[in-house]
């Protein structure tokens, strides 16, 4: 039902629905994700290492390169080492959509329109939008424009937040975010412009300090993660290599870099936005449930 509404929303706006593979060679490089790994075997015995996708992102971007302008997909994605239940399930449904020639501001507008089509009671409310920098000024009193490692550490200490000696700037930022910011995100709010050490695959803002990335929180639940996509293949390779190194350091499988993606990336227009939205979490919001296992017919806890 909900997926039918999502499909008609996008087809009315000129998007093309695409299907992307689930078993791939390069499932994703994010240092904190653990893909399900497998072996793909040919009849003659030739074996290939493979894994289940953690997101359809790479395949989607490969379709943008050859010229598809507006695409969306609804697919199952898989993440190992996840908590059973609560906000997580190892297998879940994801909606991803991309549009060339538009940036993340346009994407936030479209996300808000999509949700209002699905949840008509909130049609007349305006979603809030806040920069991460403004949230830090308001709730913690530090300016991320020039906060260095020491300032972030001092802020943690003065709020009694637990830290460790080898915390990176990104770790300290996230400790503050989890403790002082996230619990204060009430209602429907877009949080955007994350510091560049949390930029992920997003383009940097014109001052070079933030990534053009946003998340939508609805009643405290993080629903999606969207970017103005990075289309610079050299920078992308650098970030992949850094992530591969982080995976190696933490003893995780280092999956091969997706060379096909890197070769197609330069033909993606700038700007292009992309957004990944958790469909099960959207279900939770639409039905007022607080646990993901209440919206999944066969949650992991009933299967394993």
């Amino acid at each position: 039902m909900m997926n039918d509404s999502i499909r008609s929303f996008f087809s009315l706006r000129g998007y093309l629905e695409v299907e992307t593979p689930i078993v791939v060679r390069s499932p994703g490089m994010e240092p904190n994700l653990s893909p399900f790994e497998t072996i793909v075997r040919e009849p003659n015995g030739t074996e290939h290492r493979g894994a289940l996708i953690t997101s359809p992102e790479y395949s989607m971007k490969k379709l943008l390169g050859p010229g598809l302008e507006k695409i969306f997909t609804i697919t199952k994605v898989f993440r190992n080492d996840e908590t059973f239940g609560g906000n997580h399930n190892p297998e879940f449904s994801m909606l991803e959509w991309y549009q060339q020639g538009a940036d993340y501001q346009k994407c936030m507008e479209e996300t808000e329109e999509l949700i209002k089509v699905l949840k008509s009671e909130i049609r007349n409310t305006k979603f809030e939008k806040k920069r991460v920098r403004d949230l830090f000024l308001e709730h913690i009193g530090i300016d991320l424009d020039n906060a260095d490692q020491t300032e972030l550490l001092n802020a943690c200490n003065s709020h009694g937040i637990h830290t460790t000696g080898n915390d990176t700037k990104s770790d300290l930022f996230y400790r503050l975010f989890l403790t002082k910011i996230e619990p204060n995100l009430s209602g429907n709010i877009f949080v955007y412009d994350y510091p560049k050490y949390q930029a992920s695959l997003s383009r940097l803002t014109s001052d070079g300090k933030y990534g053009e990335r946003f998340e939508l929180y609805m009643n405290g639940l993080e629903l999606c993660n969207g970017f103005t996509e990075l289309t610079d293949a050299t920078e992308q390779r650098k970030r992949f290599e850094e992530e591969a190194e982080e995976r190696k350091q933490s003893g995780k499988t280092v999956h091969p870099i997706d060379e096909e993606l890197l070769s197609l990336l330069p033909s993606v227009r700038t700007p292009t936005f992309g957004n990944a939205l958790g469909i099960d979490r959207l279900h939770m919001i639409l039905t007022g449930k607080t646990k993901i296992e209440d919206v999944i017919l066969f949650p992991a806890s009933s299967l394993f």
Partner: protein
Amino acid sequence: MSSPNDIKKGTVVNINNELWLVTYFQRVSPGKGSSFVRTKMKNIKTGKVQETNFKSAESLTFEDVQYKKMQYLFNDGILYTFMDNMTYEQVSIAKADMEDSIPYLKEGLEANVVMHEGLALSVTLPQKVEYSVVYTEPAVKGDTASGNVLKEAELDNGLKVRVPSFITQGDHILINTDTGEYTERVN
């Protein structure tokens, strides 16, 4: 040394020589960077509850604690005494170490005493405990229409709670010992 990824409900973590009992945990992954485990922990000595977030890569010291099923006997205002029904062994816990559990105690209540290196540190109560209602005003006609009306009731251990208006004197009810709220009537 243990990893925050091994945290479960009931794990006892030693942080700067203070023991914290984990009451809630959830893994969180930011869009970029390390993943974290978000926890709510209760200080075993003081009962203070706080949220602490651990990076998955941190190493933690878990304390080896045993939970012994014991029955609450009596208190002298300072020490609260429990007994193991199998061995008749008795242990006493200082009032300050179990402050938040005291309102829910009643004679004969079975609880889990947290034992660490032979010492009784604290006690965790069952999440729901049954009591009988010794006093409550009868419901006023018309109040039940909205279905949400609560009234005060006094229970057999002296605890006062808010209950739905259909509860009458002599009813047996379950109370959530984490929140102090009424959960259901027992028939």
